[in-house]
């Protein structure tokens, strides 16, 4: 055993506290690198697997002959071919040829064309066979030049993250070595004065690093793998795969490839060696006497903070100067804390932003209509597959469906409305709408009949008149679209002085539902593609407008801008007279707030309930999109929080390391201050201000970074949306920044007290003598 190895071993055993601290630091560094690499590998393999489950072939070529399929099979770049023939609905024989390529293929599309397009075909002007490339699967299996190029792009982005983590890991290891070595700086000086060469001193620290790494690296890899699994499992359990790839969570693969673990170990070992070498060289380069006397710290320029000086007196001045006495240390600490702050701010902002966007679109009728979460239809007597025009509904049918769906627990509204023509003379409309109507020669309004719950719901519980007052042909006039230029109060500037109106409602029906009293000759009609004729039938409607209202969340997407709202009982009265023309059998189903909080469970329950009803189908499910968005949000939140925690832990470790080193390096100076009359309270105050300064400076730096960043994101990605859409903002998570400030400050304080604890045990002269 060499002199260096022997001494390294002795230092490790004799300086247990520092050895444990260095092991912890290396472990943390390895852990961070392992987590990011394993998460990358796991998500990559999961995407690969999920894509395979969705469609396990690289390409499908349509309608080629068996001989052509054989040509494909014989290619060295094709691993497997599946040839399927089937009869189309029109009776023709067709084929699908599914292909798996070998990993060394260059461009699948070119290969297919080269193999299947003969010169004769080209000469005859025959088109090449149609085919579909499953690029996603190729991408994740890294097959083809395009996939490899895509991988380089993805990995470049990932590498930015890896780079940040690796740099942070370097800070941690470097500081750990500096701390453990600084305390025996004098011993290195003595060794040097006794004739130890630079190499020998560096080797001592290098051997220490290697020995400690033997414990730290496997521990870091094991812990990193465990933590990666927890993060991965949490993300997958949000059912994000189901939402976006339509595969079950069983498709998820937790992947911890040996090569990635080895990469983490090697990276950490290189960092350990570099840190050990750097630390060793720093000591070895100094003249031994300087190291023995500890007179190495040369300060030529120190910035001071006037604010701290004014607020904290001499203690504040000392603290502000201490913070900036070592530029490198100051920058490392501030950068690592700022990085963690900024990442937290950005990620919480993104989470908040996506939440806002989801809410925004939930509240608008453009994407997830607030009018209904499900649109259901009641089609009794085995008519589920028939067109709505082929159905014969009665009012009783309509009410039956209503009762059935009401039992689902959702608020249900029958889609009962009349499209009503009103003579221009009967209603004086908003000028813009009036112009439009004039061009058509008539005014067409939607007249809707709501039940009490829905009526209150659209006016957010504050209807312009109580529902009971609508009974008897009374109507509220209001906007029917949030996006209408027409303001609700202006919709109808004046109507007939007595408030009454009358109109003709129309509806088209099939020929077989025409009644003898329908004047078919005079009714307009049209035919569908099968030749069936549809006829307009009409009826009379009269009523009174009793109030103006503003529905908050939009209405139908009709262009008219206004609608009249009446009560359901009136509709039943009208429908009794001519249910053929009025009853659609459609129902809006709306979830309440409590159900929306646990929307996945509610959705399952509603779908389960409806699937048990023979005559009811849900044919439009807006909740799926809501659930998918929420799952994405949850997955994103889990991943973001995990990254935030990791980055914050890195910042904390660095801060603790640096504060501890700062104090331990200044033992003699602190003893001098105490000898000059500094009280323990002043000493604690000084070091606490130092900790606070790091946190406050980092918080300010974060704000300075995030303000332009938010502006940039808004300008680049958010603007261009319609007015009223949420903006990306970092202002909401200021509270989160304050929350992080607390652990950062507390960690700094803990490090301070831990480092100062030794000072209380010794007298001032012992403290000074111990160093000297």
């Amino acid at each position, binding site marked *: 055993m060499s002199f260096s190895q022997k001494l390294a071993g002795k230092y490790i055993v004799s300086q247990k506290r520092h050895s444990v601290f260095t092991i912890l630091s290396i472990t943390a560094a390895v852990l961070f690198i392992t987590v990011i690499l394993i998460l990358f590998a796991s998500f990559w393999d999961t995407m690969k697997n999920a894509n395979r489950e969705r469609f396990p072939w690289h390409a499908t070529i349509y309608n080629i002959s068996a001989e052509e399929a054989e040509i494909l099979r014989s290619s060295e770049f094709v691993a497997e071919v599946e040839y399927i023939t089937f009869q189309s609905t029109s009776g023709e024989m067709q084929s699908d040829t599914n292909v798996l390529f070998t990993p060394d293929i260059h461009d699948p599309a070119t290969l297919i064309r080269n193999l299947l397009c003969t010169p004769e075909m080209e000469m005859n002007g025959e088109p090449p066979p149609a085919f579909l490339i499953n690029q996603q699967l190729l991408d994740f299996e890294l097959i083809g030049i395009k996939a490899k190029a895509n991988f380089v792009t993805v990995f470049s982005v990932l590498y930015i993250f890896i780079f940040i983590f690796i740099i942070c890991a370097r800070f941690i290891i470097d500081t750990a070595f500096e701390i453990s070595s600084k305390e025996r700086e004098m011993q290195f000086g003595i060794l040097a004065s006794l004739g130890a060469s630079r190499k020998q001193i560096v080797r001592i620290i290098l051997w220490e690093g290697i020995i400690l790494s033997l414990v730290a690296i496997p521990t870091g890899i094991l812990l990193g793998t465990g933590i990666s699994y927890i993060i991965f499992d949490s993300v997958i359990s949000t059912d994000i795969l189901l939402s976006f790839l339509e595969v079950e969570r069983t498709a998820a693969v937790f992947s911890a490839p040996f090569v990635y673990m080895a990469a983490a170990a090697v990276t950490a070992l290189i960092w350990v060696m570099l840190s050990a070498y750097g630390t060793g060289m720093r000591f070895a380069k100094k003249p031994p006497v300087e190291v023995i006397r500890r007179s190495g*710290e040369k*300060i*030529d320029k120190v910035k001071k903070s006037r604010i701290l000086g004014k607020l904290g*007196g001499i203690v504040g001045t000392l603290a502000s100067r201490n913070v900036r006495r070592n530029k490198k240390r100051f920058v490392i600490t501030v950068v690592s804390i700022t990085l963690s702050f900024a990442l937290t701010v950005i990620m919480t902002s993104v989470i908040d932003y996506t939440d806002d966007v989801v809410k925004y679109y939930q509240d608008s009728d453009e994407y997830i209509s607030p009018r209904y979460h499900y649109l259901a239809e009641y089609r009794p007597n085995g008519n589920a597959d028939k067109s709505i025009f082929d159905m014969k509904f009665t009012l009783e049918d309509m009410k039956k469906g209503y009762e059935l769906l009401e039992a689902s627990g959702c608020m249900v509204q029958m889609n009962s409305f009349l499209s009503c023509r009103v003579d221009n003379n009967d209603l004086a409309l908003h000028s813009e709408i009036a112009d439009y109507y004039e061009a058509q020669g008539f005014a067409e309004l939607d007249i809707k009949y709501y039940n009490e719950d829905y009526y209150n719901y659209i006016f957010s519980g504050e209807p312009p008149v109580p529902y009971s007052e609508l009974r008897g042909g009374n109507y509220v006039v209001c906007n029917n679209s949030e996006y209408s230029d027409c303001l609700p109060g202006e919709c109808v500037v004046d109507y007939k002085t007595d408030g009454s109106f009358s109109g003709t409602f129309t509806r088209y029906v099939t020929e077989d539902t025409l009644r003898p009293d329908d004047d078919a000759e005079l009714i307009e009609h049209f035919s569908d593609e099968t030749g069936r004729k549809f006829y307009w039938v009409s009826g009379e409607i009269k009523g009174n407008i009793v109030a103006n209202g503003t529905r908050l969340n939009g209405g139908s997407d009709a262009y008219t801008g206004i609608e009249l709202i009446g009560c359901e009982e009136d509709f039943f009265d009208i429908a009794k007279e001519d249910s053929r023309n009025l009853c659609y059998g459609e129902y809006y189903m709306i979830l309440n707030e409590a159900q929306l909080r646990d929307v996945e469970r509610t959705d399952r329950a509603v779908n389960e309930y409806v699937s048990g009803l023979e005559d009811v189908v849900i044919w439009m499910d807006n909740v799926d999109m809501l659930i998918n968005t929420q799952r994405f949000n949850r997955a994103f939140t889990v991943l973001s929080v995990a990254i935030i925690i990791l980055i914050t832990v890195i910042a904390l470790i660095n801060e603790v390391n640096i504060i501890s080193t700062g104090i331990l390096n200044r033992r003699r100076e602190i003893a001098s201050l105490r000898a*000059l*009359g*500094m*009280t323990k309270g002043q000493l604690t105050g000084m070091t606490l201000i130092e900790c606070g300064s790091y946190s406050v400076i980092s918080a300010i730096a974060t704000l300075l970074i995030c303000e332009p960043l938010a502006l940039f994101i808004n300008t680049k990605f958010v603007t261009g949306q319609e007015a009223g859409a949420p903006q990306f903002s970092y202002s909401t998570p200021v509270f989160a920044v304050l929350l992080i400030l607390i652990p950062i400050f507390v960690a700094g304080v803990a490090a301070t007290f831990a480092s100062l604890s030794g000072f209380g045990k010794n007298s001032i002269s012992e403290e*000074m003598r111990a160093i000297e």
Partner: protein
Amino acid sequence: MDILRTEDLTKVYGKGENEVRALDGVSFTVPEGQMTAIIGPSGSGKSTLLHLIGGVDKPTSGKVFVNGEDVYKQSDKNLAVFRRRHVGLIYQFYNLIPILNVKDNITLPTLMDGRKPDETRLVQLAEKLGIADRLNALPSQLSGGQQQRVSICRALFSNPSLLLADEPTGNLDSKNSREIIELLRMSNKEFRQTMLIITHDEDIALQCDRIIAIEDGRIIRDEVMK
């Protein structure tokens, strides 16, 4: 009037077989304005004695009275105040605070006391000690001799009852050593400053009013020269 009195001052380091008696029942008094040299071989207990008098160490037994007040009966906080106001310490390696400039280093005890430094006194002292033009410099920009002058200036600035110097010329060349001793003598005469100086240098000791020789933690000779 006696400024300093020690009674049976004892300091023991370690326990059992490792026990070292650095000071062993040292008792003496120092009258106001006296310049006393403490001499003795390395490890004799000189620095320990000085540190105990200066309130930067704690005796195993015995008492130290400065201006009639029992130094070690005070609370930690009051002991710190005692160091600021009643003691001026000069070390061999100066112990200046590297992040503060000369002016801040000198006025540091006063600033820590929450008082406003007397600018006139600062300028007068700095001029007498020959560092008036270096007040804005950082310690690293000064020579060893200049740093020790700053250290003396700091010790004298708050006009302490006692000035304690631990081998103040130990780290200096002969020219600087002579100048520093001159300065100490000048402040002793001009400000009637009571001083205890630890030194190995016989010439310096001979310039003092009194010489106390210590060996194995005990006073073996106490001689008043003037």
